[in-house]
């Protein structure tokens, strides 16, 4: 169990969050610069918060109220994976993995390194230098190097963002399998909702140093607490009544040139179109209507040949709309913070 509450004044805002994480994978998702990576550095001990307390399985790693109560990074039993993987370029794959266990006796060291090589499946690369590895291979070696020490909690900073699209999906699946086998508190930081959905048992959406919503990936996508969260999960969130908002998925939206007379219909302009396999994702918006995402089937797109800038009607069937209790100030993070603390 990892519990922490930290505050740190950053240049543009104050990082202020508290979380309690059991033996699960918790994803922190937010835009770059929202304080996610800073949070991990504080937990790893590489940076000091202005105020805070970190406790792992009953052991206090940091308490700013008690002077000198700060365990240094090398004694925190932390696994820390950085975005660039930071493999030591002058050491072979084997030596990279063995780097953190040089105190163990030779036999135990060899056994652990071999276990780690097999765990991430890089045994054939054991003697290679990091410079000759692909991004996916580097990630696996970095994972092995962190896990070979059997850390008591694991922090992963954007573990997939250095990979190209073609390897990303495969590596994400492998990473999920490894994380599931760990059963230690794990925090993954990402800016990608798909990564969060696949890897996270639960996720927390962060904005300007604060958590604006927590829940499972599905809960967050189904009932986004604010427009900010909705934008992350590609969910449409439209102001309905006074204290309610309507949430619905892009693939429930239908687009037509003529009004259908439905209950939920808006006149909007086509601002962008991107072809994603069997459908086209339209970004809709305009002066009169709200900003919406709509997934239009490819065959319909071919038939109707909509063009950029064209004004259309977007509608959604009432049965596909989820009503979300609207906070008085949807973008004010303070509201949701109460749920966490």
């Amino acid at each position, binding site marked *: 169990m990892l519990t922490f509450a930290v505050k740190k004044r950053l240049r543009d805002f104050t990082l202020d969050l508290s979380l309690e994480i059991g033996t699960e994978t918790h994803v922190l998702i937010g835009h770059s610069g929202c304080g996610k990576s800073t949070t991990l*550095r504080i937990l*790893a*001990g*590489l940076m000091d918060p202005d105020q805070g307390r970190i406790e792992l399985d009953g052991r206090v790693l940091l308490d700013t109220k008690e002077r000198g109560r700060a365990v*240094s*990074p*090398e*004694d*925190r039993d*932390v*696994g*820390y994976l*950085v975005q*660039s993987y*930071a493999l*030591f*370029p*002058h050491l072979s794959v084997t030596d990279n993995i063995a*780097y*953190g*266990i*040089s*105190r163990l006796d030779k036999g135990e060291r060899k056994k652990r390194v071999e276990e780690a090589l097999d765990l991430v499946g890089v045994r054939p690369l054991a003697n290679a*230098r*990091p*410079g*000759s*590895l*692909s*991004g996916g291979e*580097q990630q696996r070696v970095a994972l092995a*190097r*962190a896990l070979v*020490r059997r850390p008591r909690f694991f922090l992963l900073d954007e573990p997939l963002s*250095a990979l190209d699209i073609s390897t990303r999906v495969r590596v994400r699946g492998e990473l999920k399998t490894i994380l599931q086998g760990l059963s230690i508190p794990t925090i993954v930081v990402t800016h990608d909702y798909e990564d969060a959905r696949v890897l996270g048992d639960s996720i927390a959406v962060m904005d300007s140093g604060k958590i604006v919503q927590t829940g499972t990936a599905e809960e967050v996508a189904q009932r986004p607490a604010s427009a900010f969260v909705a934008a992350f999960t590609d969910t449409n969130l439209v102001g309905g009544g006074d204290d309610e908002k309507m949430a619905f998925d892009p693939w429930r939206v239908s687009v037509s040139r003529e009004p259908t007379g439905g209950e939920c219909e808006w006149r909007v302009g086509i601002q962008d179109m991107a072809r994603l396999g069997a459908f086209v994702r339209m970004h809709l918006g305009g002066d009169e209507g709200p900003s919406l995402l709509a997934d239009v089937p490819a065959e319909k797109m071919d038939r109707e040949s909509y063009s950029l800038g064209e004004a259309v009607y977007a509608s959604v069937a009432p049965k596909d709309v989820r009503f979300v209790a609207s906070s008085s100030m949807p973008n004010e993070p303070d509201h949701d913070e109460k749920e966490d603390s």
Partner: protein
Amino acid sequence: MLGRLALALVIAIILSFLFLPLFSVFITMGPVELFTNLNTPIAYQALFLSLKTSFTSLVLIVAFGTPLAYWMSTSSFWGKRILEVGVQMPIVAPPAVAGVGLLLVFGNLGLLGGVFSAFGIGITFTAIAVVMAQTFISGPFYIVTARQAFESVDRELPAVSRTLGVTPWRTFWRIMVPLALPGMLAGAALSLARALGEFGATIVFAGNLPGKTQTFPLAIYTALQSDLDVAVAMSALLLLTAFILLFLVSLVNRRAASSALDQRKGD
């Protein structure tokens, strides 16, 4: 066409100006003649003193300069810029001025000279003074190069090293030194070359006493007044040494550059 001709001419002029004085030392004499002229007690004495003092300076520079270079590469504080410029001052300051400065501090009547003479240690006109002059003048070459070498190491590496249970001290030896080593070696070679050639600060602060403070460059200066051939022969030797050192630096740099390229290919 005319433009290219003009460019070629300009380049030819500047290259001749730079190289001719250096080459002239070698063309005026054959190798045998060079050796005969070098084979004098005064030259040996000066050569031995130069080697002894220069390597002593180098050891001092590396021992004291490395921590400074590392500290400057990792910390940020108010006035760091000024400190960086200050550390480089001996590179551009006239060596004679450095000699005067050393005299003002460590001379028998200088700021600290009294302290040393109270313990019966006279610095001026001894080999100690030679080492101090060389260290002062050539130290910045090592410090600046080593600092840049430390700065070029990815900051994530020592951070990750610590999360892998390795203390800052051991991280320094296992990560920072191996990765900064090419730069440190280049800096050391530059410093050594500069120390071997040091003249101005040495003659002002340490004097020109054969056998005691007369280093190789000082011996060249003295020989110039009596026997030009000896001076030329000694110059040739000093130039050759400097060239070899500089060549080693460029080799190290090339290897460092190509291994850095290898690292990047992996991304």
